[in-house]
């Protein structure tokens, strides 16, 4: 057991992956000597060398495109995209090449590539540094998408992702990098693809992931003082989603609220709302409500708190659902 921040848990997890498999390499901008702008790869180049922890040229398509070639050669690349808003120069390589290679090759070419992306807002950053682009990747067949919400999951999920034979986009909740928890470094918490009921309740289910999990747990604690019992489901895997866990919970509580930072329209939250409506049709006492970022570009930092889902907006949705 060790007390680790989420960022340090990722660092320790990556260290373990590098130790366990000599084919694992880390590549990205500033991941080597600097240890990453968030220090997630701190110290790894020093211990594993420049050939395995590679400071790359400043070109995101190049990072992913060369990772494809390295994977064909038998390596297991872990690519860092420095910020969410910088993934788009690599979008073509991710969507057209990484996602499709196994399919096009009829299973002959595996691309065990991990694409790490710090995402989400709440750190007072300038534009392109606070976005939540997960829906684009969930929409792309051939990719798997996961996100952690706490240090325990960070430590284990990054290792499970790196060891996975499919390409996985690994979203890191950057404003939670400094959250601390005791991490059991001996036994994994659960399978990579399983959702977790992180708080049990009976009145409504809050379905969430990544940075919003903590906000939802705080909302559930506040609701309890008003005599309301909220169940919080941390999806962890965003593609594919562990539907049985979600459906079991909503069937029980008969109310569902989806919470995330990404804009609502045509998004992962849309998919969750549609799927829950279809699968829990006879159980639901209210429509599925969504508390998300608005359908605007990510706003300027002085007003980002008004954009991000917070306790009040979540509890307002709970009120509307229960009063329906």
């Amino acid at each position, binding site marked *: 057991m060790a007390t680790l921040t989420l960022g340090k848990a990722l660092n320790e997890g990556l260290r373990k992956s590098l130790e366990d498999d000599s084919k694992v390499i880390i590549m990205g901008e500033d991941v080597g000597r600097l240890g990453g702008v968030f220090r997630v790869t701190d110290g790894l180049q020093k211990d594993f060398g420049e050939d395995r922890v590679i400071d790359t040229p400043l070109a995101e*398509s*190049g990072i992913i495109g060369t990772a494809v070639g*390295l994977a064909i050669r038998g390596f297991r690349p872990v690519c860092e995209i420095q910020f969410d808003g910088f993934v788009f120069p690599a979008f073509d390589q991710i969507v057209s*090449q990484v996602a499709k290679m196994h399919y096009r090759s*009829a299973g002959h070419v595996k691309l065990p590539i991990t694409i790490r992306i710090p995402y989400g807002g709440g750190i007072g950053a300038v534009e392109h540094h606070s976005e939540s682009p997960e829906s684009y990747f969930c929409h792309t067949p051939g990719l798997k998408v996961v996100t952690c919400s706490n240090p325990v999951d960070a430590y284990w999920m990054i290792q499970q992702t790196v060891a996975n034979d499919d390409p996985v986009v690994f979203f890191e909740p950057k404003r939670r990098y400094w959250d601390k928890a005791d991490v059991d470094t001996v036994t994994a918490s659960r399978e990579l693809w399983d959702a977790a009921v992180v708080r049990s309740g009976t009145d409504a289910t809050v379905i969430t992931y990544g940075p919003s999990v903590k906000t939802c747990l705080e909302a559930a604690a506040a609701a309890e003082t008003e005599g309301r019992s909220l169940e919080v489901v941390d999806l962890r895997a965003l593609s*594919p989603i562990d539907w049985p866990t979600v459906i079991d919970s909503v069937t029980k509580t008969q109310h569902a609220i989806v919470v995330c930072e990404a804009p609502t329209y045509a998004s992962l939250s849309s998919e969750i709302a549609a799927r829950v409506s279809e699968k829990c049709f006879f159980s639901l006492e209210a429509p599925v409500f969504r508390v998300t970022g608005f359908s605007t570009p990510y706003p300027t930092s002085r007003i980002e708190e008004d954009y991000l889902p917070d306790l009040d907006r979540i509890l307002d949705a709970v009120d509307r659902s229960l009063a329906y």
Partner: protein
Amino acid sequence: MSRAPGGGKGAATASALSVQAVQPSEGPELVQLLTPEGERVEHPDYSLDLDEEAYRGLYRDLVMVRRIDTEATALQRQGELGLWASLLGQEAAQVGAGRSLTERDFAFPTYREHGVAYCKGVDPVTLLGLFRGVNQGGWNPRDKGFQLYTIVIGSQTLHATGYAMGIQRDGADGAAMAFFGDGASSQGDVNEAFVWASVFQAPIVFFCQNNQWAISEPLERQSRIPLYQRARGFGFPGVRVDGNDVLAVRAVTEAALERAREGSGPTLIEAFTYRMGPHTTSDDPTRYRLAAELETWKLKDPIERMKAYLSRSGMGNGEFFDQVDKAADELAAHIRAGCLALADPDPITLFDHVYAGGSSLLDEEREQLATYLASFEAAR
């Protein structure tokens, strides 16, 4: 002088905006070992000394590769292929490069490298699945060191660069070769590949077949300088070779591969050639280029010049040429039979191989489609 849209603010401005011709093809910078007339010439930097059998082998390769192409074009015209990307005119570029590659080396093709595939030992029938629509390639690239065809322009140059970095990390002997065209030279990925290969000194050869046309756009729309000169700006050598001269291409490519394998980094080869056919069978080049241009390039035909060289030197005679033609006909028959035997896949297989580790979502969708399809069977 042609003017760009909105030009004409003054002579200087109009000149700056207009499309200017790049340097002409002939000149001291073009490496050539065999003239269009089939005359053997020497070059100060590049030489090739093969035995007679090897020279005859190159001729045979050229004929076989052209036969693959004409047979596939015929199959498309007869409705057996949905599309075909012809390499007509580029046989020497591809055979020269393809025969330089050894088992240690890995080729990253576009969708037109049928000749390289042939030299790498890939059965031409394997290439047809994609164009017939029964698969999306589906071969194992590791079998022959020949990656799947890449249709998005330029993407494979980064894959090749990454593969070369892998060779480096394995401490292995070998090189990667990235194939692309003049149009691709404008792509960001190609330029990123140049940067990466250069700073990591990766064992890679960038083999650009400049066939003068990117569908309808002439080279002048991609570059104001000869493409091979771009390499200098990225920090590695570039060389322009007569792409219709199989001997020169082979000499230049072998030297570049050797340079890569010994750890001296990348080389850009610009094989100066011409796309004699349409971009694909869906294209109509009469809309954008003159027939006279085609006639000029017919005089530089890669097969005719090699045939003339063999005849003149006594290495090939009528009997040999007849044997080669017969072998080409046999290959064509094999391709035709193989193509017709490529059956449509079972619809339910569309879910196969999306993921190495499967997916609960796809399991559900597969079951839904199976149930739906079975409902028609039940209704019979």
